[in-house]
């Protein structure tokens, strides 16, 4: 076990201190932060300018600023606030609307002045405020004490919303998150898996493997490498996920994210680990077949093709997570490593489906590790031309 630890520690210390690793981590984290702020930058205004004039300006202003629009979306509109400007008379308010200085004006508490209409959200806000004011007035006119009126109105809860179909906006947001999950998983898997292959080839091509294998068992050398590079990969994943979540809450996108996004992120970590273990075991085995860096392409290519295939299928089915293809492949290793988190992000899977798929993938990981260790053990000290896969399996 000590050998395993030493090998893993070396990978972490040596690879983790390279500029390449640190720079790529910073760039990925920066990219995720930009991604989190993007809706904010591209989304609609988060402040509406509304003018008031004539009578009832105080009550209508108070009502306008207290209305909370509650339709969740990815565009950031839910954070919209209303900025009130008072105008001395109706003419001034009209002029301001015409000039585009304000989005709309409410005159005498019952007339809305717009320049060709307003967005549905602002219209909803103003309408709600107007009805609030109007109903308080009506109730006051019926001789109810004003504080009782406002108390009664304040205790009215928001309407309970249930959808028989999918919330279109939320489905869009979920698809976007599913795609991000797939892209994220792919790149986070690709890097460390390639490092495993390259590391194995480096040791074999420099013949250092001869010295290593006189003090280490092959499984310690391969296992330590997979663990060490896995730890680096995990740090990378955690930094990026943390940067993404922090940026999402800083940019105010967080409350717009569909419920369960955090658990999606956590589950994605688990899928990443299973996927990494599977692909890394194969990468180590394939890397051990060649003695020269130049030969690495021929042996690693099938593995990268497989990873790209998983990636593309998962990406293209993110829009149709309930299709037969998506559902079937979400149980088939190694596709499941990307398909199931994708489906999970779209919110269309039950917990037991995830557990079942994870168990199948975990079994495949055990198989891949056993197979990888077997090939590695037989091929890693055979120098010279490329070792044929079948020879390594039989040999």
């Amino acid at each position: 076990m000590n050998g395993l630890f030493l090998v893993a520690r070396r990978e972490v210390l040596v690879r983790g201190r390279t500029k390449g690793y640190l720079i790529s981590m910073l760039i990925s984290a920066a990219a995720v932060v930009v991604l989190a702020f993007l809706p904010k930058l591209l989304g609609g205004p988060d402040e509406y300018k509304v003018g008031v004039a004539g009578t009832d300006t105080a009550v209508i202003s108070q009502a306008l600023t207290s209305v909370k629009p509650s339709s969740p979306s990815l565009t950031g509109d839910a954070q919209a606030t209303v900025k009130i400007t008072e105008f001395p008379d109706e003419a001034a308010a009209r002029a301001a609307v015409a000039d585009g200085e304000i989005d709309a004006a409410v005159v005498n508490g019952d007339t809305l002045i717009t320049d060709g209409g307003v967005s549905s959200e602002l219209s909803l806000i103003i309408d709600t405020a107007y009805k609030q004011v109007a109903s308080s007035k009506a109730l006051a006119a019926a001789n109810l004490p004003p504080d009782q009126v406002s108390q009664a109105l304040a205790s009215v809860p928001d309407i309970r919303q249930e959808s028989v179909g999918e919330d279109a906006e939320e489905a869009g947001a979920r698809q976007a998150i599913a795609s991000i999950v797939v892209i994220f998983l792919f790149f986070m898997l690709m890097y460390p898996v390639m490092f495993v292959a390259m590391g194995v080839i480096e040791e074999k091509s420099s013949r250092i493997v001869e010295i290593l294998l006189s003090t280490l068992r092959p499984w310690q050398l391969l296992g330590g490498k997979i663990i060490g590079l896995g730890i680096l990969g995990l740090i990378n994943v955690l930094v990026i996920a943390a940067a993404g979540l922090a940026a999402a809450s800083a940019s105010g996108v967080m409350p717009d994210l569909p419920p369960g996004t955090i658990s999606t992120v956590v589950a994605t970590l688990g899928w990443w680990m299973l996927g990494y273990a599977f692909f890394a075991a194969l990468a180590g085995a394939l890397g051990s077949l060649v003695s020269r860096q130049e030969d690495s392409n021929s042996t690693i290519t099938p593995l990268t093709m497989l990873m790209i295939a998983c990636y593309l299928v998962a990406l293209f089915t993110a829009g149709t997570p309930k299709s037969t293809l998506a559902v079937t492949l979400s149980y088939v290793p190694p596709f499941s490593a990307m398909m199931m988190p994708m489906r999970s992000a779209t919110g269309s899977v039950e917990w037991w489906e995830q557990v079942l798929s994870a168990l199948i993938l975990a079994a495949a990981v055990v198989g891949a590790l056993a197979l990888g260790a077997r090939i590695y053990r037989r091929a890693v000290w055979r120098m010279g031309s490329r070792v044929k896969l079948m020879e390594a399996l039989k040999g």
Partner: protein
Amino acid sequence: MMEIDGLRKSYGEKVALDGVTFTVGSGEMFGFVGANGAGKTTTMRIAMGVLEPDAGEVRFDGHRLGFADRRRFGYMPEERGLYPKMKIAEQIAYFGELHGLATAKARKSAADWLERLGLADRAGDHVQDLSLGNQQRVQLAVALVHEPEVLILDEPFSGLDPIAVDTMADVLAERNAAGVPVLFSSHQLELVERICDAVGIIADGRMVAVGSVGELRRKEGRRFLKVAVEDAPTGWADALPGKVVGNDDGALLIETDDDQAVLAGAVKAGRVTHFGWQEPTLVEIFREAVA
């Protein structure tokens, strides 16, 4: 004591080793010589467990050599192996730890060896930035960092400048003096002759001669009388017992069983300025043994 006993290894049709047998005693410096492709590297790789023999075994202190024994060996493979992008002090210490040293001890030992090998100021450099000769010193440090009980070195002297050769020879002699058996291969036969207690000559996978240099001289080498006689008539030695096999700058090289008769003949022929046995060099022994 390390015993190599009856090693056989074939690659398909080609027989690489055909019953290689020899012993390296405690505190013995064993020079392993042979032409390229004769089987030196294959033998050493089998001894290090990097390769499995088809038959035969390697024993250490009487028992079959196992993984745990080899962890206490120091090994320098033929094709040098170092991580190109790892700092040399860290790299040496890493191998020390792999061989079972505690972290602090491995670091200390790495620093000591770098000091000893004149690389202390390069401790933080990457291996790929060193000259080949300096990389070889690092390689030696890697083989020695854990105070190995046996040293197996494949061509440790190749590519070294004369000063580095002396350093390497000193270090090996020192380990040797501490009782460590040292097995190394080399094509530099003068060097092997100078520093080795025992020599093994391998040709086509077979050991053709094994023993101390003195033993090999007696067994394998032909020795000649070298006789120089001033103003001697041409052909003065023709009638003497033995055969004239060469002429070394005026002195005759005579192969004979009766040195006294040759001496008497030489005295008769003129003023004898040189008379003595010329011992065969290892180069000559080697040429004859593999011929």
